[in-house]
């Protein structure tokens, strides 16, 4: 175990990004993700990388656009209100088919909200975040180890599919320390023949742009992008199942809510209630298959969320309305207690007799 060290989730993301070959970080401080910027500020100058505290979140995301155009791995990080500011840039990155990694360590909202943990940017993240038809790959870590591993994965997926990957964490995941093994598996980087790296007078100009004024051509671009999304939905969905095989009550939860739910599942099992948990790791693409399969034997689903009920809509869609789906939630920076989740399980279980 000596190869494991204790690290905050935010620091694990920063170190994993460096391990993945990211040498360009642009950010603007906001709680509860500031440790990412602090870590980058310390490390990047020592390894020949760029750390830049931009004048605003909007500036930072546009710097990301610039580096991504040049074909280098690049990232920015923020928390909920800051990510809203980046919305325009996220849409432009999508429109230009540029790979990048965005980290959102969520806090309670809307507006400036609070600084305590939340999952209330689920809609914003899984539906794109800015204007136009597009998706981001949305990864939801539930441990510090996953904060590191999914950061590497996020860069790889972004490069493979030429799009933005988002790490959707929350204040708890960012602030907590857990043992982490940083011996991460990093695949060789992709060639990026489309990047604007200078022609050396030896090739045609590469153009990176999101403007397309001919509707027929813009439609074609959208169709092609969605063909790519279909491949991602088929190949890149990730989830974890916990005691789902024989479960009557199936919980759906990601990130910190999944950790709390696991405790509740164990307690329910001790009481003789067959509970289980499906934890989506990719929120987009949403893992529909395990939900559809579980709906064949489950009596009910409970979506456990740190918001007013956002992922529940995807759970209802994925289970094709075969079972009732109820919500167990806290909002505004509060976290459900395992007891609250357990009570929810007991209530739903009793209500079916």
């Amino acid at each position, binding site marked *: *175990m*000596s190869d*494991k060290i*204790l690290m905050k989730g935010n620091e694990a993301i920063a170190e994993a990004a460096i391990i993945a070959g990211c040498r360009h970080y642009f950010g603007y401080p906001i*709680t*509860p993700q500031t440790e990412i910027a602090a870590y980058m500020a310390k490390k990047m100058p020592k390894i020949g990388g760029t750390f830049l505290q931009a004048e605003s979140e909007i500036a930072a995301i546009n710097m990301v656009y610039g580096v991504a155009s040049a074909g280098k791995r690049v990232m920015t990080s923020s928390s909920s209100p800051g990510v809203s500011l980046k919305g325009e840039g996220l849409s432009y990155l999508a429109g230009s088919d540029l790979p990048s990694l965005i980290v959102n360590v969520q806090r309670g909202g809307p507006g400036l909200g609070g*600084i*305590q943990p939340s999952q209330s940017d689920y809609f914003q993240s899984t539906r794109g975040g800015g204007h136009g038809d597009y998706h981001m790959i949305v990864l939801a870590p539930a441990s510090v180890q996953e904060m590191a591993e999914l950061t590497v994965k996020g860069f790889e997926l972004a490069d493979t599919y030429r799009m933005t990957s988002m790490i959707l964490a929350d*204040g*708890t995941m960012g*602030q*907590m*320390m*857990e*043992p982490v093994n940083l011996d991460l598996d990093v695949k060789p980087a992709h060639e990026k023949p489309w990047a604007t790296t200078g022609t050396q007078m030896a090739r045609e100009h590469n153009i990176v742009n999101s403007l397309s004024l001919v509707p027929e051509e813009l439609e074609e671009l959208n169709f092609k992008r969605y063909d790519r999304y279909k491949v991602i939905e088929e190949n890149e969905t990730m989830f974890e199942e916990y005691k789902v095989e024989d479960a009557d009550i199936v919980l759906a939860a990601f990130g*910190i809510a999944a*950790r*709390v739910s*696991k*405790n509740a599942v*164990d307690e329910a099992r001790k009481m003789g209630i067959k509970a289980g948990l499906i934890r989506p790791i990719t929120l987009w693409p949403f893992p529909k298959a395990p939900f559809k399969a579980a709906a064949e034997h489950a009596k009910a689903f409970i979506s456990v969320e740190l918001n007013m009920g956002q992922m529940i809509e995807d759970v209802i869609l994925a289970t094709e309305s075969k079972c009732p789906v109820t919500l167990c939630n806290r909002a505004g920076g509060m*976290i459900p*207690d*395992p007891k609250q989740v357990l009570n929810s399980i007991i209530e739903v279980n009793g209500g079916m007799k």
Partner: protein
Amino acid sequence: MAAKNMLFSGFGGQGILFAGKFIAYKGLIEDKQVSWLPSYGPEMRGGTASCSVIVSDTPVGSPIVSNPDILIAMNLPSLDRFEDAVVPGGMIIADSTLIERKVKRDDVTVFYVPATQMASDNKLGNLANMIIVGKLLKEIGDYTEDGLNAALDKVISARHADMKEVNLKAIKLGAEY
């Protein structure tokens, strides 16, 4: 030991987070599953600082400790706030220099350690936190000199290596109290 859920609480500046980190690292070195979660936000500036620490033989579920097996209370507001949350049969260790009242519960084991006074008497500066840690390790039967050394090496940066000896002294004082 299935799991020990611990809550460390006191004023910002008392080394609450450091004490928790030390216990977490000690668990990690001993091949346990651990988590450390600080309270964060404006309350840390001069107000209450606290952290949840879980040391377990099995993977840690929720890292949030709302009902601790062990409460470390280093000031009165911490005891007032968390006393009722301790599980029946649990343990409370209180810094009795700063907490003048007694624990009201009669279903928990309580240790009163005048840690702040002891630190001052022994010229240990602000190491009341580590005196309490010593008492904690002793009472949960986890006090071994080897373990202490290895964990201190992890939490004390090379720049402050000279602090190791006084930390050891503080832990020993607490264990022997």
